């Protein structure tokens, strides 16, 4: 018996050693390592990292990547003692919130002047610049639509067609930024009262409200539901993977969000973080990185080359007052929850 417990003791010692040293066992190079928070797609991380580190060989990126909501929650929770040095690719609505709380550094990167006006912070302090935009859109599963003899919708208004009863999925605006920007866009297009009337009718057709902005399109792509309200990037990537989906950009106009970059005010590696911002706003990054994955990017000269994106998105993007949208959020969500949460038992 004694032997086995001695073994356990040894294992424990080993485990503690791993804990103590494993934590600090990063490579001992002289490069400055900066922690970068991001919500860009996982597959893009190594590409972005490699590209930047080629330009700035003395800096190393350590990614912390998760979905937009999770990263934003994490960043805000850490605000008393921020762990991130910079942000590269997080929804601008989150960054505006961070800016309001004084968490971002004032810095105009080298590429600032050239970027499209929409894609940069126009008021002091100048904390963020956009890299790409993604817009709300409708994912329609053509196979399901054909099998069930459903028309392909062209507009938001089309979605209240009783034929779609129970066949639409959309993100819950209380759980998902995409969900909220969609609702906000409806309010802007139709006016407040009409938008609620619209959503009342739409509610009849919604099978399920999902907790993430990607999920509706993923579900539509798999044919779980015929129609998913989601954003174009996810729709394009599902289509590329082979899903029978058609991406509809409603003609009334679409809500959108932008992925943006910023420096965290408390960073101890300001020089490295600035290098990252300079690169993030550069023509090279727009050309070599963003335009490969997104259709709408910050640099006016970069042409989106990502496959399966609808061409009309940029033209249909609404003029949005991001600050107003952020301010209305609590009120809208409370109303939304009152109308659609209480009777949420599915039928």
């Amino acid at each position, binding site marked *: *018996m004694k032997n086995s*417990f001695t073994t356990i003791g040894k294992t424990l010692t080993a485990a503690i050693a791993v804990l103590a040293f494993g*934590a600090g066992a990063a490579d001992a190079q002289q490069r400055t390592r900066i922690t970068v928070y991001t919500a860009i797609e996982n597959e893009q991380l190594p590409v972005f990292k490699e590209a930047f580190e080629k330009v700035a060989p003395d800096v190393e990126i350590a990614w912390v990547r998760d979905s937009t909501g999770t990263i934003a929650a994490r960043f805000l929770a850490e605000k*008393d003692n921020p762990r991130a040095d910079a942000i590269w690719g997080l929804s601008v609505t989150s960054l505006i919130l961070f800016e309001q709380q004084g968490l971002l550094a004032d810095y105009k990167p080298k590429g600032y002047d050239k970027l499209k006006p929409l894609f940069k912070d126009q008021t002091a302090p100048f904390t963020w610049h956009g890299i790409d935009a993604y817009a709300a859109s409708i994912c329609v599963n053509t196979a399901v639509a054909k099998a069930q003899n459903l028309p392909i919708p062209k507009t938001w208004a089309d979605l209240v067609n009783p034929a779609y009863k129970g066949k639409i999925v959309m993100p819950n605006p209380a759980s998902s930024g995409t969900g909220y920007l969609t609702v906000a866009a409806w309010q802007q297009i139709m006016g407040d009262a009409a938008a609620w009337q619209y959503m009342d009718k739409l509610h009849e057709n919604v099978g399920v409200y999902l907790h993430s902005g990607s999920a509706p399109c993923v579900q539509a792509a*798999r044919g779980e539901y015929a129609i998913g309200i989601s954003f174009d990037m996810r729709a394009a990537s599902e289509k590329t993977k082979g899903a029978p989906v058609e991406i509809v950009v409603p003609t009334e106009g679409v809500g959108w969000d932008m992925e943006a970059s910023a420096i965290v005010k408390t960073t101890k590696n300001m020089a490295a973080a600035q290098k990252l911002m300079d690169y993030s706003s550069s023509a090279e990054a727009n050309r070599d990185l963003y335009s490969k994955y997104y259709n709408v990017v910050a640099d006016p000269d970069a042409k989106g080359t990502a496959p399966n994106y609808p061409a009309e998105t940029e033209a249909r993007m609404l003029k949005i007052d991001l600050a107003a949208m952020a301010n209305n959020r609590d009120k809208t969500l409370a109303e939304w929850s009152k109308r659609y949460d209480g009777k949420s038992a599915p039928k």
Partner: protein
Amino acid sequence: MGIRLDRDAIGQRAALLVAAGFLLVSLALPLATLFGKSFRDRDGQFVGLANFVRYFGTPSLVASLWSTVWVSLLATCIVVPLAFVYAYAIRRTTMPGRGVFRALGLVPILAPSLLPAIALIYLFGNQGFARFMLMGESIYGPIGIVIAQVYYCFPHAFLILSTALAIADRRHYEAAEVLGAGRVRVFLTVTLPGVKYGIVSAFFVVFTMIATDFGIPKVIGGRFNVLATDVYKQVIGQQNFEMGAVVGMVLLLPAMIAFAADRWVARRQVALLSARAVPFEPQKRKLRDLVLFAFCALVATCILVVLGVAAWASLIQYWPYNLSLSLRNYAFQNADASGWSSYFNTLAMAACAATIGCSVVAFGAWLVDKTRGAEFLRGVVHLLAMIPLAVPGLVLGLSYIFFFNAPGNPLGFIYGTLAILVLNTIAHFYTVAHLTSLQALKQLDPEFESVSSSLKISVWRTAWQVTLPVSSQALLDVWFYMFVNAMTTVSAVIFLYGPYTKLASVAIVNMDEAGFTAAAAAMGCTIVATSAAAKVLHSLLAAWLDRRTQAWRAR
């Protein structure tokens, strides 16, 4: 009039203080930091109960609360009897294949909760090939939640009940039989009272697990709102930590009730295995064995079908439009930048959490059960140990940020390292491990320590030479429990991993969200395979221990 403390008593009290300190730092203080936020507004101004008033004024709250209660209750009432019969068949009959069934019964615990959810969608979703079985009902909603929760919680209930049923005094059965009690009566008067504590524990553990889990309702719950998804909405959807804390506190209620009930039952529990107890040997009874065998076979088949579907899902190119198979999905770098490294992080984290956690928990449980006097301290440690069960992982993870990341926290250095993931995981799964250890300890003769102090032998020596070897099987079970849970834990660690400590379970969620369902299933299957390997190792060790201890277990 107090009894002067001897060295043992002082040592035990000191150790109790350390245990309480551990739970304080890993649990109570972080939670207190977070819950402090429930009394503040977003700007950090103290607002008293305003958040609570607002939350309780929300019309959807009542719906969420009610949904949480009835779904949890329904799933619990299904899973506990199911697990009881299953455990009973394995522990108390002579039916063939008990070892295999035991292993299969634990299979769901090996899988990240997303895996059965994916399998259920493939089976019963709108494109699922077995959706006819739902007779027109949708899997997205309470039906899906209940099925997935039953699947997910089954091993937990099974583990607790199996431990409770493992030990019995044959003489009680002989006595009952001699008294002419029929089988039903023996079952009602001997078997059930003997495992009452286990049943109550299982009930509350499962109920609270279901009530606090957000993973399953998030993926398969559809429009169905429960309290745990409310937390998710507040924290992830709106970054409203203050309201998240409010809902988190509401969710603590079931655990408080569980704690009270646990105490109440524990006071009525007497030791079952005195030193002169005669171990129970099940008798062969053909009909009973046959019926129970059929039952176990059915349960095991369901478990395997779900797992099989998940394994199949991991090989499919694109569900449901391209069903050709390929191993490509196991090349994780295609779907997640961290590739296989997240898997190895998980492995290291789980090994550390299991080994350290098992030692810490078992020692803590021993102190709670075996220290004479010090009722207050023991009560504190036990109370703290019961809390994690009630805390949604999301709430615990968030509280770790606020506590460990606070400027000036001397423990801040573990933030972002593997160590904080280990600590968090131990704390997160403390309760069941604690209850399992306690259950094993309660089945020992309570006078061992009295004897050793009458012989002037220190309790530590008795703990090392008697208690530890006698409960080594239970200890091994606790290790395994910690290990598999650490392999699959998501919600608490999602805020805590650092740039180099991303975990496989987080990668699964990320991949699924990005539409790489097959890769997510593949990573899930890799975790299942790893945990299954650990299970094999666990069984080998258990068999070895069993052989070594056979001599003193035999009559």
